């Protein structure tokens, strides 16, 4: 069997980039077909294909790293750069929505009444559920750090406990936010206030769900002894993502919920 004389990861040929690309095509063209022809089949097919691609692709990454040993220190460095670049792109994604919010709220037009919140809008009280949500996410930042230290110290039981608690807190945030969405006296169609509020907080909520899922996968892997005290990058990436989600919320809370009320 030939052995490589370098520490980099030369991946096996994989079908998942192709299936992922087709999934993206189906989801986008499916969206257009839904808008114009009221048929959702193409879009749903695309979503199913996306989920299948995601599960099998990342399953393979776990196999390559944990079972085949391909994630050498230089390879791991590349993975770290990759995750940092991805999170940076997400920061810029949210920056756009904050730009939109500040563009409209710093100079409210006469159509809005010349003030912010606009005429007719009853904003949510920032010191009720939104403040609780802030506490929940800050606490989850503490528990995920606890989980990291537990993993580094080889404390299996505490790692499982603290990681579970982190996921539960994420679930609690999502539940509370869903209730807020249901009870809110304004909708996404209520002018620029509604649009900026629900698009910014909506994408944030989606990222909370994604982050919670990533952490749940890490919990599954921790239970199955995938992580060692010195090698657990999958968890670190999930923790970085989780802190990013927390920081975005803090900006949302200060800007839209508090200053914007």
């Amino acid at each position, binding site marked *: 069997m030939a052995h490589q004389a370098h520490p980099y990861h030369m991946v096996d040929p994989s079908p998942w980039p192709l299936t992922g690309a087709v999934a993206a095509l189906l989801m986008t063209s499916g969206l257009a077909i839904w808008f114009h022809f009221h048929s959702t089949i193409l879009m749903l097919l695309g979503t199913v294909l996306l989920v299948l691609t995601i599960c099998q692709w990342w399953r393979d990454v776990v196999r*390559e790293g944990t079972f085949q040993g391909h994630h050498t220190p230089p390879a791991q460095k590349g993975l770290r750069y990759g995750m940092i670049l991805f999170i940076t792109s997400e920061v810029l994604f949210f920056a756009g929505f904050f730009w939109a919010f500040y563009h409209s709220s710093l100079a409210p037009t006469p159509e809005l009444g010349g003030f912010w919140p606009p005429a007719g809008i009853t904003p949510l009280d920032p010191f009720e559920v939104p403040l609780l949500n802030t506490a929940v996410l800050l606490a989850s930042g503490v528990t995920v750090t606890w989980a990291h230290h537990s993993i580094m110290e080889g404390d299996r039981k505490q790692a499982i406990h603290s990681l579970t608690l982190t996921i539960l807190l994420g679930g609690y945030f999502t539940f509370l936010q869903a209730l807020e969405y249901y009870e809110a006296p304004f909708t996404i169609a209520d002018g620029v206030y509604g649009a900026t509020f629900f698009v910014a907080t909506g994408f944030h909520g989606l990222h909370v769900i994604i982050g919670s899922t990533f952490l749940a996968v890490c919990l599954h892997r921790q239970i199955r002894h995938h992580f060692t005290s010195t090698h657990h990058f999958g968890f670190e990436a999930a923790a970085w993502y989780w802190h990013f989600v927390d920081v975005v919320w803090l900006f949302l809370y200060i800007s839209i919920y508090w200053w914007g009320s």
Partner: protein
Amino acid sequence: MYRHVFALQQVARRTITSSARRERNRVPEKQKLFQEDNGLPVHLKGGATDALLYRATMGLTVFGENQSLLSLPLTS
């Protein structure tokens, strides 16, 4: 009432962590399986289920691609 909540919490925690604790380390077995010199690519190396999932995914891919192309004339 709070005693009952606390007791339930303890039972739930012990159930989750005891089942997690009982989980023995199967990583060495997985390492042996995925390092076997059989020429299989990583996405098929896990066994028969891999091939099934791959075929289903590729089938949906081809079918979906066809459907997308067929719906293109509709959009003009």
